[in-house]
């Protein structure tokens, strides 16, 4: 095999060549190896002449972004793909880290959902540099158990978990056609919003990438993955955490 693959140096090669001359069986096996190799090479040659997707060429020509925290994974690649597919106008990330969530998004979010639910105050408000849940959303985060929610609830709780920071965090989604979803963590008696998928038409194109059944965008999933410590809470642990008021066990 090594001979057929051209891996042998002078002496060893000469020895195999001698063996081939003397033993037709050896010769046959070498010929078989070579034939197989050629057949495989041929079968895969066509793939090399396929056009390469433009995004790969662009990626190869891009200067590396120097930012220290450069996590690239399939989720972000797919986000960028979905964005590229959604239209010419680059509109930036449809999900941003908390610090960068545009004010307009939060206002739109608060108005859009606050307005629909007659009684409620805004679901999200700014508070001393943080964005926290309020109104119906805060209520649901504090009291609703994932196993006991009705399918018509305005706020649906997804997964609850203990974060690396020691805080309890829960994912949520809101009813409605755009069904934004987010991640909130309990800190200083408040539910701080850690991540939010943008509740606009822009998010629609990403529907295909949402995790089936969870109603959650990949960006939220990614935020969960980054923060979770261990496994998500099971219903018993979830209920126990609620009874302590989601007080972090530090």
């Amino acid at each position, binding site marked *: 095999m090594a001979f057929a693959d051209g891996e042998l140096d002078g002496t060893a090669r000469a020895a195999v060549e001698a063996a081939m001359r003397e033993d037709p069986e050896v010769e046959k096996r070498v010929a078989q190896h070579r034939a197989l190799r050629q057949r495989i090479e041929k079968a895969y040659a066509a*793939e090399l*002449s396929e056009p390469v997707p433009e995004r790969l060429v662009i990626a190869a020509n891009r200067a590396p972004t120097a930012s220290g925290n450069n996590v690239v994974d399939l989720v972000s*690649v797919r986000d960028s793909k979905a964005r590229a597919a959604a239209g010419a106008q680059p509109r930036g990330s449809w999900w941003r880290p908390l610090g960068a969530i545009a004010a307009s998004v939060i206002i739109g979010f608060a108005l859009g959902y606050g307005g629909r639910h007659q009684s409620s105050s805004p679901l999200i408000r700014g508070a001393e540099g943080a964005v926290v849940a309020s109104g119906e959303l805060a209520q649901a985060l504090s009291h609703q158990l994932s196993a006991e929610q009705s399918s018509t609830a305005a706020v649906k709780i997804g997964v609850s978990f203990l974060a690396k920071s020691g805080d309890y965090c829960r994912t949520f989604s809101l009813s409605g056609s755009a069904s934004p979803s987010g991640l909130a963590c309990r800190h200083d008696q408040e539910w701080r919003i850690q991540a939010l998928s943008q509740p606009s038409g822009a998010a629609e194109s990403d529907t295909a990438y949402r995790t089936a059944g969870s109603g959650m965008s990949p960006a939220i999933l990614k935020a969960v993955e980054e923060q979770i410590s261990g496994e998500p809470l099971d219903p018993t642990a979830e209920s126990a955490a609620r009874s302590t008021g989601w007080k972090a066990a530090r």
Partner: protein
Amino acid sequence: MNTSETSQNIHAQIVSLLPRLRRFARNLTRNPHDADDVVQIAVERALLRLDQWHRDARLDSWMFKIVRNAWIDELRSRARRDKIFLAEEAGENVGTEPIEKESALMSVQAAMARLPEDQRMAVSLVLIEGLPYKEAAEVLEVPIGTLTSRLARGREALQGLLGAEG
């Protein structure tokens, strides 16, 4: 050669490797969409870590290794995601999507797809991508003896699946 020339050069070299990276990634992931995604990730990572590439090392081997590691990371992250959400997503992603080819070539690809991953990777790197044993062993991070035994078993299996006429 100054640094900027070198770096321009490296972009061009990576672009010229793209077809092979895609081909390798398809054998790795057995899914053309995953393959392109994983190549994109690998290209981005490689550009970030150019300082880790030794100029006397082969760029193709180095890139194959990054592609493979990116795929391993992705599989881990999927396993974790599936644990968090018991959704159907896993099924969708794991499903193999054979690359359509005319039937004569299909049989080679179909036979490849049946090989266990270890053997498929050895065959892919040595017989398709043409790496020397030593380079292939480094990409897969195994001793050369392990590589050659996987290659031998893979060859034998392919010979059996494709028929003796070769």
